[in-house]
Structures are given as structure tokens and as C-alpha cells.
């Protein structure tokens, strides 16, 4: 040890890294992202500009292919700009580079047939467009904003010296997931196709199922930086005009840097925060979207996300399964009743249990009450602690099962449910009846078809449990009213969330239950569609004619 250092003062050199506030810089950067610059006639300038925008010195996947283009016996410098991995290299080689780099014979060949000669050769750009690039999806662009956005989405762009336009070639060729079975919304009898990440594949799925020229698919870009492609899809002759205008207004007035998922978009376009209650239906099933569009709703697709958003959505939609329309109405409605019971159990059972055991013991027959009391005799904790302990444990098991690899996930569930529950009862930490209550509640929560809706029930369940603990049925009654009034106050794109139950506009509204398909003569009137009637009064004409 250096003795001198003991008596010598030296200021400490701390490594202190702080991210500086970049409020102003962010604003400037955002503004500078709006590229007003147009394509220049000088190739060098264009090259420098685009190189600076794509940081080619750092980015390894950006490809700039410089070459000479021979046209009308003249040599022009040119370059192709694309991102490796997002384009189809074979197509670029065969249908872009090859025709461009070959010596143009046709310009020399005076004996060419007259039809070919009709092409306006005076325009160099048109000549390249019409003669040199044999590609089906090709456009001429002048704005760098559009060019850069297209390059980012997998296009290849050709710049030619002396031309103040660029050729935007749709040479996308990135790897993507193929259409697979739905992961969450499984059905037994219905279609087995689900959306994928690619927006164009998804729109093609919709187009194929709708099979009608009135399907409109409007593209909207969201995100100053990400410029995520979104598609608003609707049936022009059915969907309410105001609904579509409102959807476009909301989608076009989102000021964010990036949009990655439909979940983010859902938060950005919903009417209000609404205490965690989902307002927009999210689905991975094209058939569900098509059905919604035929009812007069609109569908929003987000590129890079295999989920579509259906607007407007009402509460009954979140309790409907895609299977419902494939089943005989009797069975479908039976399942709907089961779901309704599951909803009530998920939301209220723990709260009710705690209210009954703490305040309203007279509700149970004496024998049952005795058995509950006997079961709880050796449990040292208050019932609220027991219940919250088990509920939180259940949530832990569920979350743990989701986050672990699928091979272990199921095992974790079994281990958690059986061993932990059994051990807890054996150790007198909780009573057996409570395990039953928590298990039934947990099972019921799985019956809710929509994940977001089920999630909100899980959260609200804790509120009802606390209300039941504080003041029994009085608290639960107040809770039910507030919850119901809150739900009733929500609107999804101008439609009351509890429609068609309340407000009950007219007699022919489709209510919670599914009528037979032949009886579904009218579309939901709360959607105010352009076409109210969806089928003839006698849809089964074969029956009537005979």
C-alpha cells in the first residue's frame, strides 16, 4: 500500500453516465423524419442522400449495386438500392439487373415490328419503365419519403443518372410464416386458417373469403419512424359511413414514433381508458373478421401482427366463440349459457364465498355450514388471507405455465394445482372448500373465449373479493351496480358497449343468444348498417316453393 496515498487527497474519478435530456433533439429528429426532399437529377447526390439516411457505413444489410445502363447507345450510371434479406435476389438478378445491364438491342434494331416502335422513346424514364424492367409491380416515385418507406418494407429502388425519378420495384422476398391453424381461437367444425404476420397475406385471406367487389381495403401508415402499414377493411355497401369516417379519422390522427402490434393500436384508437375493460375485439381468425364485415363492422390489420381488430365491438362479442355459428343453435346457446355462468362465477364466486362465510351464513343449509366450519377449524388464518393466498397462487401458476416452455408448462400446472393445493390443505394453511372455490373460479375463467375480457374479469374478481370481505352482500351489491354502470357507460366507436341489450332500440335486435341461421334476417341495428336486411324472410325458398 502506498503510504503517501493515505495522507494525500485525490478527487475521486467516478464513472457517471447519465442519459441527457433530448427533448429538443427529439422534436428536431421527428421533424427531420418528414422527408420533403425529392429525387435529384444528379445520381451522386441521390446516392449520398440515401446513404446518409440508411447509415450505410454502419448498417450491414443495406445493398447498393452500382452499374452502367446502356440505352440508345448511351451509357448512364445507375444504382439499385435494397435491403438484403427483404428482397428476392433471384428476381432482382433476372428481371431487374439482367435486362438493364444487357446491351439494348432494340434501340439499334430498326427492323423491329411497328407495334414496338410505338413506345415513346423520347422519354428516357418511360423507356426504362416500359421496355427495360419486366416487372408487374413497378412505379415511378419522386418523393424520398415514399421511396425510403418502400425500401424498408422490402422493395428495391433503381436510381438512374439524369433522371429525377426513381423506379420503385416490388421485389419483396423475405421469409415469413405460412398460414397455420389458430393458436387460441380453436374450433372443431369451422375453418382452420389463422392470420399471419404479413399484411398482404392477411388481406388476401379476407378477400378470398369475402369474395365480393364491395370489400374495401384501405392502406394507412402509422408511426413517424416505423411507418407501419395498416389496413382498414370494410364492406362498402354495408358498413355505416360515419363509422368508417371515424375509424379513418382516428387512424390518421395518431402521432407516434412506432407501431409494432395491434395491441398498441387498440389502445390508441379506443374511446377511453374504461377501467381495463376491452373495447375492441382482437381475433386471429379471418372467418370471424369476414362475418363481422358482413354485419357492417370494420376490420383493422396491422403489418407484422397476426391479429385483426374488429370495430365496433360490444360486450356480447367478447362472450361469443367462433364455434357458435357452426353449431346447432340449441347447442350454441347452451354454451352461451355456460359462458354466462362462467362469467358470473369468475367475477363473483370468491367475493360471494367470503361474504357468505363472514356475514350471511344463514344462506347455506346448516349441515353445509357445519362442514365448512369443521374444515376451517384448524386453519389459523382469516378467510380473506386464505382466499387471497390461493388466488395469487393460482395466478402465479397460470402465469408460470404461460412463460415456461410448452413441454414443462402443462407439468407446472399439474404440479401447481395438485401438489401445492394438496400440500396447502394438509398443512392446514387453507381449507379444502376454499380449494374448490378457487378451482371452480379458475376453471370458469378459462371458459371466457376472449383473453382480454377474461383478464379484466380476473382483476375485477379481486375487487369484489375485497368488497365482500368489507361489507358482505352490501359491498357486492354496490360493486355490481358500479361495475354494470361502468360497462354501460362505455362506447366502442359510437356504439354502446352493452348493445343490443341496452339500449334496446328495436324488437329485431339480435340479443345475446344465437337464433337459427335462417332467422337472422336483419343485421344488428346498433351498427346502423347501410343494408339492414341480410336475408330474405323466407331464406329457405326450396321449402316454400314445395
Amino acid at each position: 500500500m502506498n503510504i503517501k496515498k493515505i495522507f494525500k487527497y485525490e478527487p475521486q474519478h467516478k464513472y457517471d453516465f447519465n442519459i441527457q435530456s433530448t427533448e429538443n433533439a427529439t422534436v428536431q429528429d421527428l421533424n427531420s423524419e418528414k422527408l420533403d426532399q425529392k429525387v435529384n437529377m444528379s445520381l451522386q447526390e441521390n446516392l449520398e442522400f440515401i446513404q446518409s439516411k440508411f447509415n450505410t457505413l454502419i448498417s450491414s444489410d443495406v445493398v447498393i449495386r452500382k452499374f452502367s445502363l446502356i440505352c440508345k447507345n448511351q451509357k448512364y450510371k445507375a444504382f439499385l438500392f435494397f435491403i438484403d434479406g427483404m428482397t428476392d435476389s433471384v428476381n432482382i438478378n433476372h428481371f431487374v439487373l439482367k435486362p438493364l445491364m444487357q446491351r439494348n438491342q432494340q434501340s439499334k434494331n430498326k427492323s423491329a415490328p411497328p407495334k414496338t416502335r410505338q413506345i415513346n422513346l423520347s422519354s428516357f424514364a418511360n423507356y426504362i419503365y416500359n421496355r427495360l424492367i419486366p416487372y408487374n409491380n413497378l412505379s415511378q416515385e419522386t418523393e424520398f419519403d415514399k421511396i425510403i418507406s418502400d425500401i424498408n418494407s422490402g422493395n428495391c429502388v433503381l436510381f438512374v443518372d439524369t433522371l429525377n425519378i426513381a423506379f420503385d420495384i416490388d421485389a419483396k422476398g423475405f421469409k415469413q410464416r405460412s398460414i397455420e391453424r389458430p393458436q387460441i381461437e380453436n374450433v372443431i367444425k369451422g375453418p382452420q386458417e389463422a392470420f399471419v404476420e404479413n399484411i398482404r397475406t392477411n388481406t388476401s385471406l379476407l378477400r378470398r373469403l369475402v369474395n365480393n367487389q364491395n370489400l374495401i381495403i384501405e392502406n394507412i401508415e402509422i408511426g413517424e419512424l416505423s411507418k407501419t402499414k395498416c389496413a382498414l377493411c370494410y364492406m362498402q355497401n354495408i358498413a355505416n359511413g360515419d363509422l368508417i369516417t371515424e375509424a379513418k379519422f382516428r387512424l390518421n390522427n395518431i402521432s407516434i414514433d412506432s407501431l409494432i402490434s395491434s395491441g398498441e393500436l387498440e389502445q390508441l384508437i379506443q374511446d377511453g381508458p374504461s377501467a381495463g375493460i376491452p373495447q375492441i375485439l382482437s381475433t386471429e381468425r379471418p372467418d370471424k373478421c369476414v362475418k363481422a364485415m358482413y354485419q357492417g363492422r370494420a376490420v383493422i390489420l396491422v403489418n407484422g401482427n397476426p391479429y385483426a381488430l374488429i370495430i365496433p365491438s360490444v360486450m356480447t362479442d367478447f362472450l361469443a366463440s367462433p364455434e357458435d355459428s357452426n353449431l346447432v343453435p340449441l347447442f350454441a346457446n347452451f354454451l352461451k349459457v355456460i359462458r354466462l355462468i362462467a362469467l358470473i362465477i369468475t367475477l363473483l364466486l370468491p367475493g360471494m364465498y367470503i361474504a357468505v362465510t363472514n356475514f350471511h351464513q344463514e344462506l347455506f343449509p346448516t349441515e353445509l355450514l357445519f362442514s365448512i366450519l369443521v374444515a376451517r377449524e384448524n386453519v389459523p388464518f382469516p378467510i380473506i388471507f386464505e382466499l387471497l393466498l390461493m388466488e395469487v397462487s393460482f395466478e402465479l401458476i397460470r402465469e408460470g405455465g404461460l412463460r415456461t416452455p410448452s413441454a414443462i408448462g402443462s407439468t407446472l400446472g399439474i404440479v401447481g394445482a395438485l401438489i401445492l393445493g394438496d400440500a396447502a390443505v394438509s398443512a392446514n394453511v387453507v381449507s379444502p372448500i376454499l380449494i374448490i372455490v378457487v378451482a371452480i373460479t379458475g376453471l370458469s375463467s378459462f371458459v371466457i373465449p376472449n383473453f382480454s375480457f377474461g383478464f379484466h374479469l380476473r382483476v375485477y374478481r379481486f375487487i369484489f373479493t375485497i368488497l365482500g370481505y368489507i361489507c358482505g352482500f352490501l359491498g357486492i351489491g354496490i360493486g355490481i351496480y358500479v361495475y354494470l354502470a361502468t360497462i354501460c357507460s362505455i362506447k366502442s366507436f359510437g356504439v354502446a358497449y352493452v348493445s343490443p341489450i341496452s339500449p334496446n332500440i328495436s324488437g329485431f335486435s339480435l340479443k345475446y343468444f344465437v337464433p337459427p341461421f335462417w332467422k337472422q334476417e336483419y343485421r344488428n341495428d346498433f351498427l346502423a348498417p347501410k343494408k339492414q336486411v341480410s336475408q330474405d324472410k323466407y331464406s329457405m325458398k326450396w321449402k316454400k316453393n314445395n
Partner: protein
Amino acid sequence: MEKINNKEAISLTISCSLGITVFISSQIIASECLSSSLINTGFISLIAMGLTAIICILYKKFIGISFLDITEFVGGKFLKFIVGTAFLFYFIFTLAIVLCKAVNCLQIVYYPMTHPNYTVLLFVITAAIACNLKNNGFLRATFILVPIVIVAIFFIFAGNLKNFNYENIFPLMGNGVKATFIEGTTNLFTFGGIAYILFLPQNLKRPDKFMSVSLISTAISSILLTFVTATIILMFNKNVTSGQLFPLYIAVRYIEFGTFFQRLDSAFLLIMNIAICSFLGIYSNLCLGIIKEITNISDIKPLSYCFVLLLYASTILIDAKFELEFMQNIFFKILFFCVISLGLIILILANLKKEFQHE
């Protein structure tokens, strides 16, 4: 407030009467008229229908116009303020007395260790939430909840059929003709919905249906009153009907529903709690609407907290300082007749003024 459709308007008006019927008036009718309660119920129902019809006829020349605007038309802004305040007082009093009665009953049955002020506070917080919800949330909730409460009332009646003592309706005239038909007229206060009807037309999507909406809601309220009174009168004698608990609750305790649920009174309590919340939501929003009209405040929502504090103070004041029996049996009735008479006078004057203007 957004415009409401006919069915919603009917449910609102029923709910307004239902709170008073279940918690206050049915017991008063049963204890005052004894065996002639059902006759009295029928009699006041007829009067209520007539009164409703008269209001609707008087409203015919003012379709879709608010009652307070009609008052302003009759006597200017000052009269509008006075009449508005009178109705406001009546509605706040109704809220306070129903709340007071319900809370007292809850305290006796389930929460003997809890001071009623805390229970009132819970309900008042609920009212504040209901006042601050957007898009007529309270109204749509009422539309869903009212049928459940109605079914509960029918269920109590049907469940107790075997417990009924049909001799209780004899002698038919109970305490006499005077008690049934003259003094019994005061029981008209059970139709609190009539006062609400005065403020309904401007909120209706189809004001032309005002008459049918009003008559249907009064008719349904009458039927419900009949069922509630019948349940009480056929089951209990005078000692029970004049007690502190509301007898409908006691009637539920007699229902035997298999072996699983031993006693259903807790379940009834749950439904009645929801009914009180619904009642609170409607009246609170109505009161805020009146305050908005008489003060011309553009945004009434922030004032809702002051209003619920006023409601809280009124309820605990009635509970602590006044004799509940006197307040509900005498003052409430007088107040009802005052506001209804005031309403009728205003409408008659407005009609006369309009006639003179035409001439």
C-alpha cells in the same frame, strides 16, 4: 343527458317508484289501511293513472320542452328558480329518506356494530360514481337491473303463496271507508315516478310517445305496488307491518327453497342493494340536471361531489335529528302533494297563457 328511448324511460320511471314502494310506502299502506290495503292500492293506482293522464294532456302543447322551461314561460326566471329548487328539495328529501330507511334496516339485520353513517357513505360514493359516468351509464344499468328487481318481487309473492293467510283481507274496508278512500289518498306519494314524469319529456327520443311511456310506467308501478302490498298484507298482522324492518324482507325469510339455500333473505338483500344504487343513480342525476337548468352551469359533473355531500348530510341529519316515522308518514306525503300540485298548477297556467297568446 343523452336522449333515451321509450323502454329506458319506462324502466327509469318504474325504478323511481319502486324504491319508495319497497322501502317506505308498502309498509305505510299496510299499517294504515290494514285489511283494506289492497283496495286502497287499487284506488290510489287509479288516481295515479288519472293524474299521469292529466299531466300528459297538459303537456301536449309543450312536446319535448323541459318542465322548468315551461315554468320560465309562465313566470320568468325567478319562478323557474323557485320551482326548480322546490323540486330539488323534494328529490333530495326522497333520496335521503329512502336511504335512511334502507340503511337503518341493514343495520338492524346485518351490521349492528357498524354506524349507519358509514353505510350511508358507501351509498353516497356510489351515487357520486353514477353521477360521473358518461353516456348515460346509470340509465342503461337501470334498464338491465329493473327487470331483475321486478322478477324478485314476483318471486317473493309466488314463493310465499303457501304462507298466505287470505283471511287477512277481511274486513274488506279495514279501518273504514274514510281511512281507505279519503285518508288513504295520501298514499299516492308512493308514485314518486309521477314527479319524475314531469322532467321526462325533454329527455325522450320520441317526445310524441310521452303519454304511452308515462301511462305504461305508472301501470307497471301500480301492479308492483299491488304485489308488494298483497305479499305483506296476506302474510303479516299489524304488529309486523308497523315494525322497524321493512316487511318485504321478513317475507323473504319465509320462502323455502329446497334444502340448498336455507334462507334467501341475503340474496334479497343483494338485489335490494342494487335497487337502492339504481334509485340513487337516477335521482342524483335528475337533481344534477335540475341544478344545471336553474343555474345554467355548462359542466355539472364537478358539482356532483358537492351534491353527494349534501345528500350525505341530509341523510344523516334525518337519521340523527328527526323522527323517521314522522318524516316518512307525514312530511314526505305533504311534500309530494305540494310538488305535484305545483307541477299541475304550472302546467295549467302554461296552457292558459298559450291559449291567450294564440287569441
